[in-house]
């Protein structure tokens, strides 16, 4: 299959994308506002995502205050509670995590890591951000709309989502939510086309697929999945909007609400659930795969060792991506769908655990016999492994259909998905920010502040969500503003209060992080050219931070994979991807 020649001067085909200078950006507007440079778009995406994410964080405090000290805070009525959890969940999953991993890291890293000047469709890329921005504005507007935001839960299950018993159901809340989601998906599709096609077309000479860093593999696979999965949410949202505004009955059966016959009839709420989870399950991996990729690179760089089993890591990403389209109904074991589906979906779900477990092993085998620098990115990577492992293992409970029966819709589920797709990816986001901040800004983030931030976040998050599993095991349902019940011992209230204190502490630590970013931007230590001595391409630009167009006069040529760390006989403990150095001249080549 391969056609490798040792001589760097011959046989290099010209790059597929003609090496044209990217659109110019001179003034303030074309640079910062309507920028077509992926690096600025990345910052716009990340900034917006973090801003709306802070709203979701504050909502989580309010949720926890209600659960930890029920009855103390009068302003949190049942309605408000449902509005809080719905907005919290939806913002975190879609508007923060999806946007920051693909729109933020994707935009920043793809062109740099594959050796392109920019995304292939820069104008569409800019539009993508602005449509996303509009989606966020519409979402935020629902807080101020009559009736407030929707309280239907982030799953938006009909019929309740569009009926009067649910906050925002017959007012503005649900309409704005659906419109915002539709906008988000349109915006994402524009961006996603860019991420996918840039990886397909604009890799520089020598950048074969198997030389791409795992970060790119993760983001690329997640993008392809998102392009296939988001249309399901799109269709479901449009159909529900029709049901709500135009009186169709796609999802609405004949029903009697508060003693009154409604004019709906014949539709099925289960159809919505299928569409929703056909999006919803891949969504978990849309968030997880970029995290998998990024964390692999963080571990390799900071343990000065090639990622163990690179090929297996790539295959696992692809296999997980493909399989995650046939497991969606594990979210519907107790939905009333045909019980025979349980056999199929439990089996596929547990099969996915195997490639996922292999990834965990390979991260740890990378640490094994490495040269582990306990930098902040490495610490966050370790935190990721612990929390992801924990959340992944509890996934085996919930995927195994019959075990899910008592646990579904309890706090056990809430604890599980927070570990696996809340805490773990956020650990990676932080690790990635500490890792690439020097590239973006030219300065290091403060290590001292970062250490406090890491330890409080990691230990705190574990203290929130590990005990929460046991609250669920007792039988406490999720989405309950007040959990007192005959079977719940009083001690659970104490535990809940403890969890709330931990949650507020973790929340406060995030403010420390924001302070660190602001302070380091102005005062941080100058980073120099390649502070982590990383081999991948993004650190090899002529200038750091990279300029407009990334590569100066000539695109780089790639001669090796991204993981040549501690190669025996090599003069340094890393060899950059664009370093043509001859292996033959070193001793003890394996």
């Amino acid at each position, binding site marked *: 299959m391969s056609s490798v020649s040792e001589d760097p001067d011959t*046989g290099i*085909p010209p790059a597929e994308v003609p090496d044209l200078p990217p659109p110019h950006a001179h003034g303030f507007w074309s640079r910062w506002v309507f920028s077509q440079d992926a690096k600025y778009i990345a910052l716009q995406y990340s900034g917006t995502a973090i801003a709306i994410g802070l709203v979701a964080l504050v909502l989580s405090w309010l949720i926890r205050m209600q659960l930890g000290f029920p009855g103390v805070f009068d302003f949190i009525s049942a309605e408000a509670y449902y509005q809080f959890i719905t907005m919290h969940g939806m913002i975190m999953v879609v508007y923060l995590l999806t946007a920051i991993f693909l729109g933020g890291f994707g935009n920043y890293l793809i062109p740099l890591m594959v050796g392109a000047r920019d995304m292939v469709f820069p104008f569409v890329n800019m539009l993508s951000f602005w449509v996303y921005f509009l989606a966020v504005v519409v979402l935020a507007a629902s807080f101020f709309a009559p009736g407030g935001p929707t309280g239907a839960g982030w799953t938006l299950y009909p019929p309740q989502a569009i009926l009067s018993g649910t906050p925002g159901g017959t007012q503005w809340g649900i309409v704005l939510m659906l419109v915002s989601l539709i906008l988000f998906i349109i915006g994402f599709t524009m961006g996603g086309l860019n991420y996918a096609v840039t990886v397909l077309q604009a890799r520089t000479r020598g950048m074969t697929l198997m030389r791409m860093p795992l970060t790119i593999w993760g983001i690329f696979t997640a993008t392809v999945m998102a392009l296939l999965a988001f249309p399901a949410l799109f269709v479901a949202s449009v159909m529900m909007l029709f049901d709500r505004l135009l009186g169709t009955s796609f999802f609405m059966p004949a029903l009697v609400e508060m003693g009154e016959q409604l004019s709906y009839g014949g539709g099925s709420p289960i159809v919505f659930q299928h569409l929703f989870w056909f999006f919803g399950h891949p969504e978990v991996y849309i968030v997880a795969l970029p995290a998998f990729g990024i964390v692999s690179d963080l571990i390799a760089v900071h343990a000065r060792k090639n990622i163990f089993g690179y090929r297996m890591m790539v295959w696992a990403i692809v296999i997980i991506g493909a399989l995650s389209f*046939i497991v969606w109904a594990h979210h519907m074991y107790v939905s009333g769908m045909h019980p025979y589906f349980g056999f199929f979906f439990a089996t596929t779900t547990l099969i996915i655990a195997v490639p996922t477990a292999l990834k965990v092993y390979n991260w740890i085998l990378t640490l094994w016999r490495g040269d582990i620098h306990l930098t902040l990115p490495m610490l966050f990577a370790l935190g990721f492994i612990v929390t992801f492992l924990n959340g992944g293992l509890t996934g085996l409970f919930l995927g195994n259909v019959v075990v899910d029966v008592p646990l579904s819709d309890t706090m056990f589920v809430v604890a599980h998905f927070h570990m696996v797709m809340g805490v773990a990816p956020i650990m990676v986001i932080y690790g990635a920010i500490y890792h690439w901040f020097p590239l973006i800004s030219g300065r290091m983030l403060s290590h001292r502040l970062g250490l406090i931030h890491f330890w409080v976040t990691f230990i705190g998050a574990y203290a929130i969500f590990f005990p929460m599993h046991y609250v669920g095991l007792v039988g406490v349902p999720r989405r309950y503003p007040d959990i007192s019940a005959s079977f719940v011992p009083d001690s659970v209230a104490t535990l809940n209060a403890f969890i709330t204190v931990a949650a507020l502490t973790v929340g406060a630590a995030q403010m420390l992080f924001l302070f660190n970013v602001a302070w380091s931007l102005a005062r941080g230590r100058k980073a120099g050219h390649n502070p982590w001595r990383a081999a991948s391409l993004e650190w090899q630009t002529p200038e750091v931070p990279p300029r407009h167009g990334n590569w100066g006069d000539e695109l780089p040529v790639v001669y090796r994979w991204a993981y040549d760390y501690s190669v025996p006989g090599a003069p340094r403990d890393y060899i950059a991807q664009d370093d043509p150095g001859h292996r033959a001249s070193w001793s003890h080549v394996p």
Partner: protein
Amino acid sequence: MSIVLGFVALVAVIALTWLWRQGVAERPWLETGAVTRSPSPGGQPTGRTGLGVFLIVAGGLFALAGSAVTMRMGYADWFEMRLPRVVWAGTALLALSSLALQAAVFAARRGDGPGLASWIGAGAASMAAFLLAQGLAWARMAETGQGLAATPGASFFYLISGLHGLHILGGLVALARVATRLRRGPGAAAPAVALCTIYWHFLLIVWIAMLAILTGWASDAAALCRAILS
């Protein structure tokens, strides 16, 4: 969900074959040096790959809509659609439009500037006529008691033809942009015309598939296949 699963399986097969050809079984740490393999799939231009990816997204959207129809069909209140005749006339216009653009591609290849312009004009006009026919079909259905919320089949017809129509509008905008480039000669416009043509064919195929699903032929055909197989 069988339609969309079939679609995803198709995409997966394409993707995995491509990945395999790209050498995902290699050991990259052993393969140091310059590489002669071309990076892009089949060495094709960016626009074409971009369109290909977009068609996968749009195809997925319609596959999902189709899946929603087949799932909804399983419920008691479903009954067969009576489509107004103008739908069939519209479908013929859509096919004509596809043919016209194909002729435009041939004209561009021959370097026939005036031919190219008139075929593009014909393609755009017949496409606009198709949209008009769809509008008439909506009006007709509303008159004959098949309003938006009247029957589930009608609801789906409005929904799907609406989504399809929006895709057509987008296509017309793109075609208009291509037409402005005609002044620079048939050679300059040829690649873009080719892309539009692919998109036009896609719109035709999607529409026929959607009609087949909505009218129940698709499920009849599936039932027949199942009967033959078992």
